[in-house]
């Protein structure tokens, strides 16, 4: 990503152009970024404007409306696709120790990775389920609004250069085997065991505009809510609350919380540091 400085003295015009652009994207294409945090969206849109050598966000809006391929670029800019396997190993260790023993009591599990991006965390948890003997009775939904990242997720191929870091993460997350048991390395690519995909459905789903599609036992949605304003955070948390069975679990990113949200009273805190919550049985 380039990092050239954008010199726009009049921020009120930039804000207005940004709001109009987001409104246009929503009305024409149905993607709703109007309740995303503004500072990030502004940075990303200005970045795209500069890459396309345009003078203003109004010009970028014009391009988006008349050239769907420009929309695809902007969707990519605004989607959150930086992830890694066993990101925050302590989170996975906590799932293994505090959540798996309870999930084990159900005959069948539905697990939802919301905003799965390129899928690294989906495979991470699939491996964990295998090691805990729960994979065969699990149905995993991995969803994202960006179809391009979903294609990468479906492949399950990641750069070999990352494997060293992932292996350390896997071990810190309480991995029980040798991490190399789960992938085949060829040249610069590591292909994860296709068997891991057997019970995973990769599907397009937009947290902002789509509704609940399944009753779930565990939802993992990490570092997605940080991009949303309070209104949208509440809306998505209510969606999760609706999807989860009573006693089901919700795992968020390390800087995300249900505290001060509208669903705060519906959940118990399982692990305050790792942001794992359990829907009350009532």
């Amino acid at each position, binding site marked *: 990503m380039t990092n050239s400085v954008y010199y726009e003295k009049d921020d009120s015009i930039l804000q207005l152009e940004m709001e109009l652009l987001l409104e246009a994207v929503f009305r024409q294409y149905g993607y709703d970024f109007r309740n995303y945090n503004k500072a990030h969206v502004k940075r990303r849109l200005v970045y795209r404007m500069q890459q396309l050598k345009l003078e203003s966000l109004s010009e970028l809006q014009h391009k988006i409306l008349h050239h769907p391929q420009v929309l695809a670029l902007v969707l990519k800019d605004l989607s959150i696709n930086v992830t890694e396997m066993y990101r925050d190993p302590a989170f996975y260790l906590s799932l293994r120790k505090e959540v798996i023993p309870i999930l084990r009591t159900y005959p069948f599990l539905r697990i939802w990775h919301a905003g799965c991006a390129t899928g690294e965390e989906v495979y991470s948890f699939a491996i964990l389920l295998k090691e805990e003997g729960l994979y065969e009775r699990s149905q995993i939904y991995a969803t994202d609004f960006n179809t391009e990242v979903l294609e990468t997720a479906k492949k399950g191929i990641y750069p070999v250069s990352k494997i060293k870091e992932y292996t350390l993460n896997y071990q810190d997350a309480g991995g029980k085997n040798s991490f190399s048991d789960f992938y085949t390395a060829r040249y610069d690519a590591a292909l994860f065991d296709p068997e891991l995909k057997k019970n995973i459905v990769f599907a397009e789903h937009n947290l902002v505009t789509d509704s609940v599609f399944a009753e779930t036992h565990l939802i993992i949605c990490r*570092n997605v809510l940080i*991009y949303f304003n309070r209104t949208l955070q509440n809306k998505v948390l209510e969606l999760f609350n609706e999807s989860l069975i009573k006693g089901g679990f919700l795992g968020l990113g390390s800087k995300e919380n249900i505290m001060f949200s509208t669903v705060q009273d519906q959940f118990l805190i399982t692990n305050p540091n790792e942001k794992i919550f359990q829907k009350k049985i009532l």
Partner: protein
Amino acid sequence: MQAFEAIVIGSSAGGLHALKTLIKGLKPGFDIPIIIAQHLSPHSENYMAHFLDQLNTIKVKEADEREKILAGHAYIAPPNFHLLIENDRTFSLTVEEKVNYARPSIDILFETAAEVFREKLIGIILTGANHDGANGIRKIRFFGGFTIAQNPSSAESDTMPKAAIQTGSILKTMELEEIAVFLNSLLN
């Protein structure tokens, strides 16, 4: 002199010691909010906020998403997140790609702070072994804010302050102790 509403500080290699000296030098009751991006290992626990808080000059804490920026506080970007300033003077966090190999990126903090606080912002570049923060310093100057670099010859690592100075957008080069004295002088 213009009333400053926020101070942003960027530091990297050697930053912990430099920040300690700077914050220790502040008068108790120093009330301009300070926002710090210090490069840290992504796996480090944030002991830094705790460490700097114990110096007992100002309240130091890790920045939380959607948190309101308050007087008398210093905030540190959480390891492995970028820290951004919103128009309503709250924080937001992202995990987008590293910028200048860093997350938190000093440039992202400085650039978003410059857009919000404009001429009422002070940007300070301390010790570091990379070029992060140089673009941010440019943007702060563009909006009329005040810019300071730690004297490269006494910085533990001189690359970052030198890169900031080379932009031509640094107004003052100072020793750490002088920076603290200068900041204290802004209080009435």
